[in-house]
């Protein structure tokens, strides 16, 4: 039965290095990330040039891109509740969705999973790498803070965590019991700050764990029964990649919407 069992090596948590520029190590996950960025830039540049004459009834390329944009805006509308909030959030949320979705799916397509360089795969799913996911999650959490500062102003934004303004008002109005309420507000604010760290960690670990476990299971299935099982698992991997991208962007949109509300 051993001709029905293929081989493979388990992926490591830290991606392998391809070459160095000076003292900066370039890994294969970084190459995939750069490739996806270039792909998205080229496609959007190409799409923008075709729209020199906007048609009122769209056809072809314009139809496809309008479909993507409309679906994304409807999806974020359900979470944020109002159209103006969606228009402010859609650059970050849409970009994160497209980046993560293409990244999850790219290595499963034919030419990209099989190229090797010196025995090491040349392109590796970049969401497989904890460095990439924590970078995206931190970026989204910082963006939610920036959106809140843009809408409410910086003193009101700090007031949500450390109650400088409401604390002063409470002390002026109510005297000693106001001090107790201000201190309680301070404790709740410190818990909120710890909650922000928890948000970014949970976002990144969810995406990383799903993608990494998918690749490990792929190697295990190849070693188990290489005839039909890896094909079924590839289909499941495509589906999981889409679901994880949807869940990541839905959570990111809810954090941004909650910070822009009063």
């Amino acid at each position, binding site marked *: 039965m051993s001709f029905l069992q293929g081989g493979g090596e388990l992926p490591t*948590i830290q991606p392998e290095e391809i070459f160095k520029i000076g003292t900066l190590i370039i890994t294969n996950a970084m190459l995939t990330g750069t490739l996806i960025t270039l792909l998205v830039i080229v496609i959007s540049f190409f799409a923008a040039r075709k729209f020199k004459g906007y048609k009122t009834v769209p056809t072809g390329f314009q139809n496809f891109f309008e479909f993507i944009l409309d679906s994304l805006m409807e999806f974020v509308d359900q979470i944020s509740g109002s159209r103006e909030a969606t228009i402010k959030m859609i650059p970050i949320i849409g970009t994160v969705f497209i980046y993560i979705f293409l990244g999850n799916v790219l290595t499963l397509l034919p030419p990209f999973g099989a190229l090797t360089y010196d025995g090491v795969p040349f392109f590796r799913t970049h969401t497989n790498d904890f460095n990439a996911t924590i970078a995206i999650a931190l970026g989204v959490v910082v963006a939610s803070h920036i959106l809140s500062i843009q809408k409410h102003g910086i003193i009101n934004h700090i007031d949500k965590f450390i109650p400088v303004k409401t604390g002063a008002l409470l002390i002026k109005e109510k005297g000693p019991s106001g001090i107790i309420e201000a201190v309680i507000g301070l404790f709740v604010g410190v818990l909120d700050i710890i909650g922000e760290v928890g948000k970014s960690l*949970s976002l990144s*670990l*969810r995406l*990383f*764990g*799903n993608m*990494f*476990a998918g690749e*490990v299971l792929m190697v295990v299935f190849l070693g188990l029964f290489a005839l039909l099982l890896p094909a079924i698992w590839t289909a499941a991997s495509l589906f999981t990649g889409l*679901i*994880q991208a*949807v*869940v990541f962007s*839905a*959570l990111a949109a809810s954090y941004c919407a909650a910070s822009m509300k009063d």
Partner: protein
Amino acid sequence: MDYAAATVWAKAFIVSTMMVNAIMEGLVARKAFDAIGRNPKLEETLFSKTIIAMALVESTAIYALVAFFTL
């Protein structure tokens, strides 16, 4: 007990905590089907929200899996 034996026990314990995740996902599915049966016109939006809820419930099991791989 030496380090390798303790690591094996720890891995077994980590993996066995994922049982609860399976039970809870079944409960989410049960309530989702109840809701679809009550109001079949809302099937499309209920389905997508159910999938998102299941991915969120799954996330604790994924944290356990990450801990498993880093041992």
